[in-house]
């Protein structure tokens, strides 16, 4: 068991003869598949032990896919660590104190497995994460007589088997592999009882088995409740799962069977049937009476829950509107005299609300398009001039792209300052290059006539783009001005493919028009 630290988790392999149990087991134990399969076949002749063991593993061991899915889901439920994969070493020291267990929870066939000679260590950590559901009682029957393995070292556990169930319920949540350990302990207990019987000691099986069935059934049913509660008692998706119902039914059947056997021991079968009929009738009557009430209660609960969700949503929206829209409206009323202020405020508010309502979750923040939009918003706030941004494609931000953004910002500032009317910004990013166009409808200006000491256009736009390997061209006419910034990708190949992409008009467009 202590050597099991680095073993791969036990999952059913996709390299399968029947269900992938043997190859999975072989992977897990580090043995050749051949021997595992041979051992399994041989064990089948030992009273069907191999068969039972195989069936049990088939049910209990998840496939690799299932296992991965379960593990992936785990972090979402921080309070469900019971069946996780902690380092195996952690579970080793705890194993001994997990004695208390409901007997007969699972198949005792395991202890008879020839391929796991050290029976004590066989069932602890290795069984990665078996589903909690229905440990097949039926499969045990055939294997019971073969339990002559050295798997009965702890005779003293028998008396602890009756320890209150509640205690072990609490342990379940804290001890890693708690369920597996409980299962193992239960199986051990069965093995002990069987061996003791072989030696001729009289064990009152007549009462033990029904009692065990009741305890097991209750345990299964309560596990269900525990799981449901974990997911928040009323989580419907959980309750609707077929597994939950199967578990409940199995638990119920076990308990009923156990009670029946116990009761029938004291009287004749006829009496038992009568009593059964009577109890079913009583139960039915009670259900009939309580059903409407229960349904109503459930409905109320649902309504209240839906109401609460709506209320939360409403509160969130109200809070947001208060923080943004109402504040802005108040501000607008106070500044009603200044048209520019009102426009600016309305525009900023619109932008904010828009981004809150329509934020494209598919797009990552922190990319070039977001930066361009942020800069445009800044300019819009500063000058009260609408800046419409359209982006196609996106790119990661680099220093060069930051320079592009700064140049674009400068161009937007110029456009907002001198252009008048809406400023149009178009950013297109392809594999080969990134282009930004800033267009306004102002009176335009002559680039040649701009004095050299004016840093705005010459330095902040053209110079900056040149320094970072890009280009900036400015077209200005009486109908408006358009600044075109282009930044080729850093690898030369990219710019080559780009030329193939560019429609011819684009190139011509880059030249001044005057």
């Amino acid at each position, binding site marked *: 068991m202590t050597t099991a630290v680095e073993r791969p988790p036990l999952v059913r392999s996709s390299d399968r003869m029947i269900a992938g149990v043997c190859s999975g087991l072989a992977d897990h134990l580090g043995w050749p598949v051949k021997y595992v399969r041979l051992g399994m076949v041989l064990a089948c002749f030992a009273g069907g032990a191999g068969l039972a063991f195989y069936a049990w593993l088939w049910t209990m061991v998840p496939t690799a896919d299932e296992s991965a899915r379960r593990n992936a889901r785990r972090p979402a439920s921080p309070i469900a660590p019971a069946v996780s994969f902690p380092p195996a070493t952690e579970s080793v020291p705890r194993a001994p104190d997990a004695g208390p267990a409901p007997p007969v929870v699972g198949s005792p066939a395991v202890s008879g497995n020839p391929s796991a000679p050290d029976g004590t260590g066989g069932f602890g950590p290795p069984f990665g994460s078996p589903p909690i559901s229905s440990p097949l009682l039926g499969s045990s029957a055939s294997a019971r007589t073969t339990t002559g393995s050295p798997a009965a070292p702890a005779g003293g556990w028998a008396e602890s088997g009756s320890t209150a169930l509640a205690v072990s319920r609490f342990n379940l949540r804290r001890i890693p592999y708690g369920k597996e350990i409980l299962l193992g302990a239960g199986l051990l207990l069965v093995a002990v009882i069987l061996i003791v019987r072989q030696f001729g000691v009289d064990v009152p099986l007549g009462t033990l088995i029904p009692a065990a069935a009741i305890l097991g059934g209750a345990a299964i049913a309560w596990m269900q409740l525990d799981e449901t509660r974990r997911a928040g008692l009323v989580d419907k998706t959980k309750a609707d799962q077929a597994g939950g119902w199967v578990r409940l039914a199995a638990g119920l059947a076990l308990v009923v069977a156990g009670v029946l056997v116990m009761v029938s021991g004291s009287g004749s079968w006829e009496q038992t049937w009568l009593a059964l009929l009577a109890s079913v009738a009583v139960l039915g009557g009670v259900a009939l009476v309580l059903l409407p009430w229960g349904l109503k209660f459930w409905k109320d609960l649902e309504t209240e829950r839906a109401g609460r969700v709506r209320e939360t949503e409403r509160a969130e929206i109200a809070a947001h509107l208060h923080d943004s829209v109402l504040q802005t409206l108040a501000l607008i009323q106070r500044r009603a005299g200044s048209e520019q202020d009102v426009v600016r405020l309305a525009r900023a508010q619109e932008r904010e609300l828009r981004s809150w309502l329509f934020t494209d979750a*598919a797009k990552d923040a922190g990319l070039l398009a977001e930066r361009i939009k942020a800069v445009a918003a800044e300019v819009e706030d500063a000058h009260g001039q609408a800046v*419409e941004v*359209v982006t196609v494609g996106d790119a990661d931000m680099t220093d060069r792209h930051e320079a592009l953004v700064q140049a674009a910002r400068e161009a937007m500032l110029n456009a907002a300052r001198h252009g008048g009317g809406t400023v149009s910004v178009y950013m297109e990013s392809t594999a080969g290059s990134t282009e930004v166009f800033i267009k306004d409808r102002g009176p335009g200006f002559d680039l040649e006539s701009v004095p050299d000491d004016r840093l705005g256009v010459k330095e902040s736009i053209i110079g900056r783009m040149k320094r970072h390997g890009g280009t900036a061209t400015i077209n200005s006419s009486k109908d408006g001005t*358009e600044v075109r910034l282009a930044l080729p990708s850093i690898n030369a190949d990219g710019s080559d493919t780009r030329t193939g992409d560019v429609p011819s*008009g684009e190139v011509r467009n880059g030249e001044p028009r005057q």
Partner: protein
Amino acid sequence: MNNSSHSGEPRSVRVVIVDDHTIFRSGLKADLDHRMDVVGEAGTVEEAIAVIAETRPEVVLLDVHLPGGLGGGGREVIAGSAALLGTTSFLALSVSDAAEDVVAVIRAGARGYVTKTISGAGISDAVIRVADGDAVFSPRLAGFVLDAFGTAPADIADDELDRLSARELEVMRLIARGYSYKEVAKELFISIKTVETHVSAVLRKLQLSSRHELTKWAAERRLL
């Protein structure tokens, strides 16, 4: 105003305004110039379908978000008036320029899309354009088209519906850059009519294409 290519004689375009905000409706009515005649108004999906069927307008100014019906808003109105699509054109109008609104309503059959912040002259021009059977593309819509169809021009081998031709791409780029149709025509040395032809072709592709990227693009934004 760049309606020089349209018919010179004065005529009146019959318009129905569909919007659930009365104030906006009256404001819009005031904004439309003399070339338009508002023959009906509606505030819900059912009202809209009824009014459109009754008045048979040339253009419906249609808000994307409308109460009533099955919750489909403007899309549902277009679907409900499908029989009239040959004679009645829809121009979608919305405060939102979220991709799902724009593309959904265009694919339903609208001839164009403008945001409600558009100027009075702008909306009048757009209505005339749509009445003449052309398409109205805002820069934002052009951006969506470029995003959805990709920015590489079509090969001859490609399905005609699935990609934009080099010329169509140029036109879309210029519109996305804020050019008016007239400016696009001047820039590319083509007539406005040609620009309109290109834009209508793009609109048709946007409406009919089942191109993989377009569906993927739309699915990512939960449009389909």
